[in-house]
């Protein structure tokens, strides 16, 4: 309930009033819409929880448990979007034996709204990914991979717009450079384009042409790289673009204890979040929108599925 207090507390303190515990119901019939964004990344075929074998993550995660958690949140919130930021595949025998079929079927059951593509999603080859896609009832969003000369031509979209209670949420995907990371025999003729350039272009398009109120990037670029500061990351993306409001990330398996708030080229804030890996964590960000005003994240919580 802290987040509910927060919005009221903030507004009151803006008037110099003392904060107090005030129920959220005062906002119920006001022009505020709450958008609840849930996200996972790098689930790596972790269908079942980690086994109880004394290892570091024993008993954590599990898609079936995540399902009840997501359902509970859906039951209490009006505007829920659920995303995955790539590396759905590879890591347990479920992928080796069934090629990702079960992972995508389960995500469809959980009503994922969209995902992006991670490097390991090519582990069954681009043909393997293609063959599994019909098991997903949600789109694969990727704006900086050009699949023109591959079997995935026209099978992915750069972005999708979700309209929630009149609010237009533009969501696009960005993937990591594949050369040097994924054998070319797996990704074949996929062309990689600079994520900053593409990110800037697409986010502007979403903001100005598509009139989006909020722009979210599903990224598999990685949060940041301590040993390679030049390597493009979510932090680079946030700081070198103009119209991205939120970056949901992956690849670096980063368990964040709070979102990283960066400043974009226009001096506006960009929220970066990531939810560890293996479905141990479900990220949650509540974004509040007021009519005619740009929404900002005022409450973010990351929930552990243990």
């Amino acid at each position, binding site marked *: 309930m802290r987040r509910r207090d927060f919005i009221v507390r903030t507004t009151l303190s803006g008037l110099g009033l003392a904060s107090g515990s005030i129920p959220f119901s005062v906002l119920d019939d006001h022009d505020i819409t709450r958008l609840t964004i849930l996200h996972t990344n790098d689930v790596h075929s972790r269908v079942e929880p980690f086994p109880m074998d004394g290892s570091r993550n024993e008993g954590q995660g599990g898609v079936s448990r995540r399902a009840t958690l997501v359902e509970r949140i859906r039951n209490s919130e009006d505007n829920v979007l659920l995303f995955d930021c790539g590396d759905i595949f590879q890591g347990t025998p479920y992928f080796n034996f069934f090629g990702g079929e079960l992972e995508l079927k389960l995500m469809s059951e959980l009503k994922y709204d969209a995902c992006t593509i991670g490097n390991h999603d090519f*582990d069954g080859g681009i043909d393997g990914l293609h063959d599994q896609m019909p098991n997903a009832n949600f789109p694969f969003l990727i704006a900086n991979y050009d699949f023109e000369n591959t079997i995935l031509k026209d099978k992915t979209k750069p972005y999708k717009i979700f309209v929630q209670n009149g609010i237009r949420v533009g969501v696009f995907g960005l993937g990591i450079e594949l050369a040097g990371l994924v054998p070319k025999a797996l990704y074949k003729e996929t062309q990689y384009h600079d994520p900053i350039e593409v990110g800037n272009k697409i986010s502007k398009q979403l903001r100005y042409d598509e009139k989006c109120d909020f722009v979210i990037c599903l990224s598999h670029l990685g949060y940041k790289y301590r040993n390679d500061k030049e390597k493009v990351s979510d932090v680079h993306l946030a700081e070198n673009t103009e119209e991205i409001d939120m970056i949901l990330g992956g690849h670096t398996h980063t368990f964040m204890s709070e979102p990283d708030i960066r400043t974009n080229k226009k001096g506006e804030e960009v929220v970066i979040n990531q939810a560890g890996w293996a479905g141990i964590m479900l990220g949650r960000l509540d974004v509040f929108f007021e009519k005619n005003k740009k929404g900002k994240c005022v409450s973010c919580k990351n929930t552990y599925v243990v």
Partner: protein
Amino acid sequence: MNRQIKNVLLFILLVSTASCSKQVYTADVDTSYYRINYKNKSDKDLDKLIAPYKSQLDAQMNEVIAINPEEMSKSRPSSVLGNWFSDALLEEAIRIYGVDIDMSMQNYGGIRIPSLSKGDVTVGKIYELMPFDNKLVLLELDGPTTKKLFDRIAAKGGWPISHTLSMDIDGEKATNIKIKGEDFDINKTYTVALADYVADGGDDCFFLADGKRTDNDLLIRDIIIDHLKNKSDSEKVIVQDKTIRIKTLKY
């Protein structure tokens, strides 16, 4: 809630949001964490969907093929799990290729579990340790290319390497390199057993792509599983080597 209070609050809210404009929503993010313990319910319908896949896997994956006497962790620059894994690779590579081989190694990201827990080692655990369909290739590298590989290992913070190799990491370079007890010699050629993923240039090892190479169709995962399966009953307990093979120099 009392309607009057509600209206007052609503008024305050409207005034404040109007006067403070965007500042109302400074991105001062309120974070909280919910640790849900494993009493957390599973979704019955999903469990039903998973069940047929699970039962197919369990039949094969739950077979116990070794006993691990103590948890082995993976870490940089050197680790017990990395030692065990690369030694097994070297032993099997020598057997498979029928020649003496100087060293073996595995890129750090190629081992996908943070640790191999104490107790039963199942086929499924080896799948999780090495989920990739990588094959074990033999490379013959000249001295300068071998040095490049060692420097790459150093720059990456250390990889699992076989007992025949040791080195220090000095910044991003490998120094004090010993191969089979002798100093590394840039004028020699060396044989290295490693994953085709790396030999193909993966993990930024593009300079290996032109190395003289022998291939074999066996998957590393299957090689390791058979390595354990083929041990006699008296050898089922994994022998751990805790030697630190790579040291990071600190000044």
